[in-house]
């Protein structure tokens, strides 16, 4: 059951001029959040900005006894709320409603897990990686960014025993190009009969490319779609995506039936620019 917590900021690490990670004291959120779920965030108390914004639960933080103490958010500054999140200081408050949405399905051994992240899409994967590790799933993160110094939290994923396959637009770290470069190579070197579960989160064109690449290998991809969301609870019908079903294509609410979708069922051509 979603809760609305007025979470205190414990720390805020500015990773670059536009990325930061903020740690929130919110045990009840951390208790419930499943991989791929999100929270609806409000940083101010006035009516402008009015609406909350959706953010993946990045990490679930735990004390030594393993009890949840809170969550972290990985944030990229692009507008009014993400700017406010970037500027947070310890002691500030952030209202978080969640956890919301349909989670990722979590692979089980012997299946491998391949997580494909572009930019801030990384935010969907730390909780997933922790879950996969608990199940001893062999996990690889394919992660693309603009430059070497735009790849964050590699240590977080390494400490979760995740194999890293990196790519940067300028070639300053990992492969030169986008994240499909190492992914393509991985497909080449992996037998089609090896069970692999694919997850993708990042810019829409990247998720589409991953889905199509995987499909050409006969594999499905779970994608995490980022639509504009008014409520996060199924109330407003703002967040719809066109999804192919048995009786044709329908607009489906991504806050309720997503944000995680089978990439193969998404009608990418109609998803917008």
């Amino acid at each position: 059951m979603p809760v609305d917590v007025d979470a205190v900021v414990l720390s805020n690490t500015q990773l670059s001029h536009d990325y930061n990670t903020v740690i929130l004291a919110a045990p009840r959120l951390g208790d419930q959040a499943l991989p791929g779920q999100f929270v609806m965030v409000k940083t101010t108390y006035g009516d402008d900005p009015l609406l909350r914004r959706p953010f993946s639960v990045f990490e679930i933080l735990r004390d030594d006894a393993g009890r949840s103490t809170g969550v972290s958010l990985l944030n990229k500054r692009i507008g009014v709320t993400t700017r406010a999140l970037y500027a947070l200081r310890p002691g500030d408050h952030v209202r978080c409603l969640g956890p919301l949405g349909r989670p990722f399905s979590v692979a089980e051994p012997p299946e491998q897990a391949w997580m494909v992240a572009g930019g801030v899409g990384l935010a969907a994967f730390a909780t997933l990686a922790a879950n996969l590790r608990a199940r001893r799933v062999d996990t690889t993160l394919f992660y693309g960014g603009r430059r070497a110094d735009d790849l964050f939290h590699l240590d977080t994923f390494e400490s979760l025993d995740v194999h890293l396959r990196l790519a940067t637009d300028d070639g300053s770290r990992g492969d030169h190009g986008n994240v499909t470069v190492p992914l393509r190579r991985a497909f080449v070197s992996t037998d089609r009969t090896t069970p692999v579960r694919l997850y993708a989160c990042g810019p829409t064109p990247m998720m589409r490319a991953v889905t199509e690449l995987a499909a050409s290998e006969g594999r499905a991809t779970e994608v995490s779609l980022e639509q504009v969301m008014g409520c996060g609870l199924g109330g407003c019908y703002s967040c719809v995506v066109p999804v192919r079903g048995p009786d044709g294509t329908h607009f489906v609410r991504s806050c309720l039936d997503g944000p995680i979708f089978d990439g193969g069922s998404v009608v990418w051509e109609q998803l917008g620019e």
Partner: protein
Amino acid sequence: MSVDLSVDVGGLQLATPFIAASGCFGYGLEYGDIVDLSTLGAVAVKGLFLEEREGHPPTRIVETPSGMLNAIGLQGIGVRRFVADKLPGLRDCGAVVLVNICGSTTEEYAEIARILADADGVAAIELNISCPNISKGGMMFGSSLRGTHDVVSAVRRVTTLPLIPKLTPNVTDVASFAVAARDAGADAVSLVNTFLAMAIDIETRRPKLSNVVGGLSGPAIRPIAVRMVHECRQAAADLPIIGMGGIMTSEDAIEFIIAGAVAVQIGTANFVDPFVWSKLREGLTDYLHRHDVPSVSALVGTLDTTRGHTA
């Protein structure tokens, strides 16, 4: 002193004056997890046409200063699937259900009303003659006095359920529409629906909404909505009014009640704070106590306009 939150809206008995506004609360069941629907005055479900509709492609909403535009395009499951798939669940939750209906023609409105008259668990019909986001129907009717009269009378003929036309604010004189609705047989009116508005992406020079225009809701419109409720109250004191437009807190709701609304709807606020309902009840109860007002009914329309504030 215990205070009485219950109200009578043209024959419709509500335990509290707080109603979930149509289009802002899904079919109600989406919120069943976090809100006990039986504690709401009523739930106005998402606007229904006769048939299923896909609505407009995204982008469907855009935020504006203290408000938001929407052009959902009345995506919906149609009245028959609603009756079959949603109404039983709502009944089980103990929800008082206002069914918000919309048609492209007068006949379609009447047809939907006829189907609902046979259904079990419908408390009242809210006639959406004010949706700004569809090319046929909706506001087309609600911005003409004749259109308003025709739709209301047509539906009146086929149902004995409380009938509540929902008025558009996009007119010169909203009170004349309240009067027209009353004269055509409405039991109450609800107002306001959203203000026709638009936002432009200056980088692409294209509208931000796929539908070009949309409806403005939220706190931004509240002062206009309060004025319109006040005008309708003055023009038709005998006609119960359900007020809405930017209500976020119990103070805002009280403002509408003092202006003349016997009940209020909560739309956009659900998106900001889905747990708003208990706060509304507590705030109103506390206010009535503090001001020694025994009931909500006793507060309705108590605005003293003999003079405004001088300070």
